[in-house]
């Protein structure tokens, strides 16, 4: 749910990267932080363990500048992927406008992908949200690796909402901005 401050002429949208552990959520947000014009971004905040696994979330604010007199911002968050951090994931999802589900394309990660996808639905439903009312994009990450699912198989597994699907390699940046661009436009369209 965006925060629209008509008095201060500001609109803020919240976008959350979701997916199983080690699927590349933080890598996405780190690539965006590294590549985007520094004047269009704020500080990257990461609450991680000593092993650099996300403990709570990563946070990166992006500014779109002034659109029709309204300062427009996208606040990007990641969630911790490991299954036992579900309480933290629920907190990060509060007030979400758009979700990027980062799928790990490796065949060995099938169960983790499905579990994470179902967990996303459970958590959204628990807070009274519905993916059909939010921006939603599926990013199929790690397409550069061998032993990966076909796009068709992953679509069948994870995309019963017929949402946009982007093939990506977050380490090299392939598909990272394309994914973000789609969800940014979706969240604006969903609430305009």
């Amino acid at each position: 749910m965006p925060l629209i401050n008509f008095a201060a002429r500001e609109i803020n949208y919240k976008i959350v990267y979701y997916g199983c552990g080690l699927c590349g959520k933080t890598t996405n947000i780190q690539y965006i932080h590294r590549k985007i014009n520094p004047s269009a971004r704020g500080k990257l905040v990461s609450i991680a363990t000593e092993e650099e696994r996300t403990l709570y979330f990563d946070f990166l604010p992006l500014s779109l500048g002034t659109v029709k007199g309204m300062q427009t911002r996208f606040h990007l968050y990641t969630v911790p992927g490991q299954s036992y951090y579900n309480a933290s994931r629920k907190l990060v999802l509060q007030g979400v406008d758009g979700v990027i589900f980062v799928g790990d394309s490796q065949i060995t990660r099938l169960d983790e992908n499905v579990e994470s996808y179902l967990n996303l639905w459970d958590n959204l439903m628990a807070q009274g949200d519905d993916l059909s009312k939010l921006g939603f994009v599926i990013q199929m990450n790690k397409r550069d690796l061998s032993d990966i699912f076909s796009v068709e198989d992953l679509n069948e597994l994870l995309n019963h909402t017929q949402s946009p699907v982007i093939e990506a390699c977050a380490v090299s940046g392939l598909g990272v901005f394309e994914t973000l661009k789609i969800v940014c436009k979706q969240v604006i369209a969903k609430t305009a």
Partner: protein
Amino acid sequence: MAKRKGLVINDRQLDLCDDLLRKLKDVTGSTFLALISTSGQPITTASDDYHPETLSLASLAASSFAATQQLASILDEKEFTLLFHEGKSSNLHVSQVSDQVLLIITFGRETQVGKVRLYTQRAIEVLRPIFEGSDEENEALSVDADYEVTAGKAIDDLFADLEGQP
């Protein structure tokens, strides 16, 4: 123009909030005050010369507060209504104004915690009604299709030529 859900702030609400934050700042001697949404987005601030990075502060404070609420739930407590961090030279006080709004206050060692708590509690009683019923009041405020088109172009420009750069 479609009706939008979410937290919408209008001129009247912001004026009332700014006025109250200034008074609260003066009476408590605090250094920085901010109203933020429970989803971690800043609404307005009051400060003379201290300007922390508000976006990060709002995100972290809202998350900490949300975690505190979950702690309350685990401990079978209905709610913890405030969060307090004590530092060597400054303190952070976060309290709930409404379902969607939190109040952040930072203050130095020279300010008494009890004073901040007392006046904050009174301020919240004034702030809470400002946000109650705001959905009906703000029903007419919405973002139109022109905004969507212009924002779409701005998004294309912002991300132009960045895809897959090594």
